């Protein structure tokens, strides 16, 4: 079993001198293939910083991060962008679909960025949309979808380029309980059927039923619940 994400002694400090604030403090974390990990923490505990660092959006003050075996250290902005495109799938709060793209185009767009052929992309998008049961909605704009449907499109978009790992930032924040559970179940299903890994950051401890591991972010380190 190979590790999809390794974080070694990762520290992130904001500011300097007396006013310095350590958000991540020598944090160690490993996610293996096929694992779906939940990271819990109240707001202000550094969840966003943790996710940004793991997702190659933020360079930590010290420590090293590996995604699918590749170290993020010494990569420039362009290389990190390319890595995010190929290796990482993101799910954001409130789905954050592009308002001017139809459902299917949301998926085709990321495929186009990753330079998939049109035919490949079509096949992959069809397969994902069908599995997530939003195939009938493929020609609609996000504004015509419900919150749950939007998140399902977001799941499909995140998996489109077959990333090594998926990061979900509070995917259930804008959904009610039952729809939220549905979305989390679908993320779990995809992790299993794609044979990849996922990390979900949330503050809602009712959504943990399908997670393989649950960790708490406390004082800048992750601890087993």
């Amino acid at each position: 079993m190979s590790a999809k994400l390794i974080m070694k002694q990762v520290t992130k400090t904001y500011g300097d001198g007396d006013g310095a604030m350590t958000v991540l403090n020598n944090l160690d974390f490993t996610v293996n293939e096929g694992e779906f990990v939940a990271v819990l923490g109240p707001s202000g505990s550094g969840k966003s910083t943790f996710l940004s660092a793991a997702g190659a959006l933020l360079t930590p003050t010290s420590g090293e991060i590996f995604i699918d075996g590749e170290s993020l250290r010494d990569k420039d902005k362009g290389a990190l962008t390319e890595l995010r495109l190929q290796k990482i799938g993101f799910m954001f709060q409130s789905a954050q679909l592009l308002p001017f793209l139809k459902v299917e185009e949301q998926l085709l767009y990321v495929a186009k960025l990753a330079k998939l052929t049109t035919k490949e992309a079509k096949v992959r998008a069809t397969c994902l949309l069908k599995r997530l049961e939003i195939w009938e909605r493929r020609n609609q704009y996000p504004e015509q979808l419900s919150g749950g449907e939007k998140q399902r499109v977001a799941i499909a978009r995140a998996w489109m380029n077959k990333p090594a790992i998926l990061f979900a930032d509070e995917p259930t924040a804008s959904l009610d309980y039952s729809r939220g559970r549905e979305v989390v179940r679908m993320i779990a299903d995809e992790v299993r059927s794609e044979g990849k890994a996922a990390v979900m950051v949330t503050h809602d401890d009712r959504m943990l039923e399908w997670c393989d591991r649950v960790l708490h972010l406390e004082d800048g380190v992750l601890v087993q619940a």
Partner: protein
Amino acid sequence: MFLALREMRHSKARYSLIMVIMLLVSFLVLFVTGLARGLAYANISALENMPANYFVVQSDADHTFRRSQLGESELAAARAVAGEAKATPLGVQTSTITAADADVKADITFFAIDMAGMLAPEVTEGAGITNEVQGSAVVDSKLEESGVTIGSTISDQATGMSWTVSGFVKDSSYSHTPVVYINQLDWQAMKQGAVQGGSSDSTDSTDSTDSTGNAPYNVIALKVSSAQASEIAAQQQSVEVITQKQAISSVPGYAAEQNSLLMMIAFLFVIAAVVLAVFFYVITIQKTSQFGILKAMGTKMSYLAWSVVGQVLILSVASLALSLLLTFGMNMGLPDTMPFQLDGQTMILTSLLFIGMSLLGSLISVARVAKVDALEAIGRTGA
């Protein structure tokens, strides 16, 4: 372009509004440009259509033809360098004529030329005149519109001399007045009449009238290389050799007229760029979070920059194409008396400049997009 086109498809109203503004501005640019060119042409077409590229003028004449006085010696000197056929004298005299049979009174400019030389007018209707026969003139077709016909007799109010119109030429204006071409014999008669009859300027004129008794010319038109032109200028102290362009811009009123229109055109270009820049900047700020998401998902900055520039390019080219059609349509509908002229070269130059200014305006938005951090995508609740 994937994003650019789909976004425009989705927000049709927003982008159509921008396009309408661009359309109006670019139409105005083209129209005022056409008007400026048209006015310029109506002003000095006689000079512009002359096959001469340099003119010899008196050095203290401020490049103005009518202030300049040259005689046979200057002509001989110029001909010595340029050759007999490439240097020819030109007399210019503004006056008012009346036509006996047509109840016409019009301001005109006499051009006295060598009818066998390079300045001989191309008659489009009727017959030309020769150097030997006095009392005939070829006139600009604008006089035809006011009632002058072939065979009409026109008289100069100042001297009382009269000519029979033998033919018409097209597009021959000087300082917004139609040109009347007469030969050298008539010119001498006119000048000598003025010398004998005139009082105040008689001393000046006799000074520059040379020993053979020929009346002086105003300028000498040249068709020479620039080396020959400077050679002629170097030979004589009292003369200056100016280019056709310089001669045109020294026509009374020409520079004032053109400069004010040019200023309008320049402002329109700036306005076009600023309006577009502001619109796109506001739209871009509105989309800041979208750009953050796109960057987090792995969209390259160059892709986003092309997306913005692409939209501006599409909008400006489309609105320019429409306004070109509009300009053509309007040009056909305009009455002939309205001076409007837009040749292909001016049109292409104006269009390229317009697109260039639009792209310049879009750069502010591109800079703004470059500043958006992908980090903004994480931890945001609002859509």
